[in-house]
């Protein structure tokens, strides 16, 4: 029983990490209909920016805010400069561009910061909770992820900019006719996603340790979680991420040897998707003839 609880809680802790990056993926997808393969590397790069600031003497929260702002601006810049030229190109072209971005960010981080592992400070003290089931840092990741989720939910539902963004993504032509500056909405979407990614990276770095490959593995899990939950739903992203974390742990402990747990976990998730092809909370895409 204790094992089971341990595995579930570890799964939740890992799942929160996936969920935080999944939120960024969902953000970009909702804004631009594109899966950004470079999301993880962008988050990692933002984290390195924060690390540089902290090492230069900035207090943690100061570095945090600056990094968030820098990432937001950076994300917007990337959309305008890198993605804009292929906006109207076939989807695969844009996908290849994000793959290129992935390589560039990874290589840049390795070049500037070397591949040596770095420590990253955490705003939360290092304490063990619930009788060794979780640490304060794990709880911190979960709490911050939920806060981001709430903020996103509020933003999309109740603010005019959020509404404009949803409109621009769903129907660019009509949105433009309504006076919405579609280009600006796309850039905003990328900016927010980059900021979310930065938060994810900063929360995760104390747990996973900072190196250029910190987010490489996480991206796959975040992608899976986002799709399981429904690529258009932020709530789905979080629940999906948590589910992926817990499922993989339970599969690895009770179902199959650790060497195959990712494979089996993915199979199970795909099985779920067979019955819900748009994810648990996603909206079905209606095709008009």
């Amino acid at each position, binding site marked *: 029983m*204790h*094992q089971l609880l*341990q*595995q579930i809680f*570890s*799964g939740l*802790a*890992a799942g929160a*990490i*996936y969920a935080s990056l999944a939120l960024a993926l969902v953000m970009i997808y909702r804004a631009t209909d594109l899966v950004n393969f470079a999301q993880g590397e962008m988050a990692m790069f933002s984290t390195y920016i924060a690390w540089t600031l902290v090492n230069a003497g900035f207090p943690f929260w100061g570095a945090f805010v600056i990094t968030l702002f820098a990432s937001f601006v950076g994300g917007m810049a990337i959309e305008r400069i890198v993605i804009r030229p292929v906006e109207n190109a076939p989807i695969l072209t844009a996908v290849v561009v994000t793959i290129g971005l992935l*390589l560039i960010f*990874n*290589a840049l981080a*390795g070049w500037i*910061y*070397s*591949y*040596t*592992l770095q*420590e990253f400070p955490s705003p939360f003290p*290092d304490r*063990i909770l619930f009788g*060794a089931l979780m*640490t304060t840092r794990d709880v911190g990741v979960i709490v911050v992820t939920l806060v981001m989720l709430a903020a996103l939910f509020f933003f999309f539902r109740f603010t005019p900019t959020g509404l404009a963004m949803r409109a621009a993504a769903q129907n660019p032509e009509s949105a433009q006719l309504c006076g919405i500056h579609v280009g600006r909405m796309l850039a905003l979407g990328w900016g927010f996603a980059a900021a979310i990614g930065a938060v994810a990276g900063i929360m995760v770095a104390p*747990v*996973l*340790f900072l*190196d*250029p*490959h910190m987010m*490489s*593995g*996480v991206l*796959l*899990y975040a992608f899976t979680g986002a799709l399981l939950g429904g690529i258009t739903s932020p709530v789905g992203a979080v629940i999906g991420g948590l589910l992926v974390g817990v499922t*993989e*742990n339970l599969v*690895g*402990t009770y179902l199959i*040897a*650790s*060497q195959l747990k*990712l494979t089996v976990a993915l199979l199970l998730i795909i099985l779920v998707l067979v019955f819900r092809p748009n994810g648990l909370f996603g909206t079905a895409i209606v095709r008009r003839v």
Partner: protein
Amino acid sequence: MRLTRMLTGALCAAGLMLATSSVNAAGQYGPGVTDTEIKIGNTNPYSGPASSYGINGKVHAAYFNMINEQGGINGRKINYISRDDAYSPPKTVELVRQLVEQDKVFLLFAPLGTPPNMSIHSYLNENKVPQLFVATGADQWNDPKHFPWTMMWLPSYGIEAHIYANYILKNLPNAKIAVLYQNDDYGKDYLNGLRAGLGDKASKMIVATQSYETTDPTIDSQVVALQGSGADVLLTAAIPKFAAQTVRKVYDIGWRPTHFLNSVGNSVGLVMKPAGLEKGVGIISATYIMDPTDPRWQNDPGYKEWVAFMNSHGLSGSITDSQAAIGYSYAQTLVEVLKRCGDDLTRENVMKQAASLHNLQLPLLLPGITLNTSADDFDPIKQMQLQKFDGTTWQLFGDVISGSGT
């Protein structure tokens, strides 16, 4: 017109013959060697998931630069050509063929990784090109009878696992052992080495094994599962990132096994400190080389020389990386072997010199540990020493142990 054409043709042919001639006035030369230059080839993962090992190649290059600045080896400069194979065996084959057939290098030095080395193993031996000081700890490279052109350098992972096995058999004969290993040849070598070292007690003593992939974000689940097996001894065969996570998680869940940590993942700066220094007290490891982040070596002259070298060659960001210390030692070994060749720079002689190392000392190796090779023994470093972590530094204990291999 005809005569001119004939003469030009004859001159060209003569020139071609001279250019490809390999015997020179000064001595015997193999391909890639001239009076002024020795061409060395290498493949390293500078990109991709194994890129953290790329520092090896960078350190080699910097060291050879330094040697060249000091006048080279017997007056010849080292032309070090290192290419990025991203740890992908098909790419390694392509690049090594390019190095051997296009660049005409003298030898392949320290190609990195077991799968990359396996993919070029028979090609290099068939073409009689030295595959010298492979940068991998797998056991299989010490086979001079079948592969006379391939030589190891690192103490093999199997030897290290044997050392742990012997310790356990002697001091913890009733242990229940759990093993956490990276799911590739490196991790598997530890598991298999432990099994071999425990002999027929292995199946009884090893009660649980868990593996992880380098793409796994965390290994918490594996650690929790291993605790659940009731083991009281844990062997962790993991690279620094995962070793740090393991040390931390084991402590956080309240598990206090006798913890053996492999040499690749025992760095104070990269593993013990990020995990939390107090969480690693009592962990046992083995080593053959100085840990650059261990305070005990700060005043050692060899260590200080290495730090000065790293700083003056733009590598100060990697001073905490033990891979950098290892790469440095590799390069020193090659320079020594090449020096011993004198002017007889043929591939045969290089292998001969490399197979005649006797108590060769290197500044960053632990005192008492030396390189030894012979015609039947292509594993230069077979010694390690056990050490225990005391919360600040690794305390060596016991004697230098000679491993006996698989």
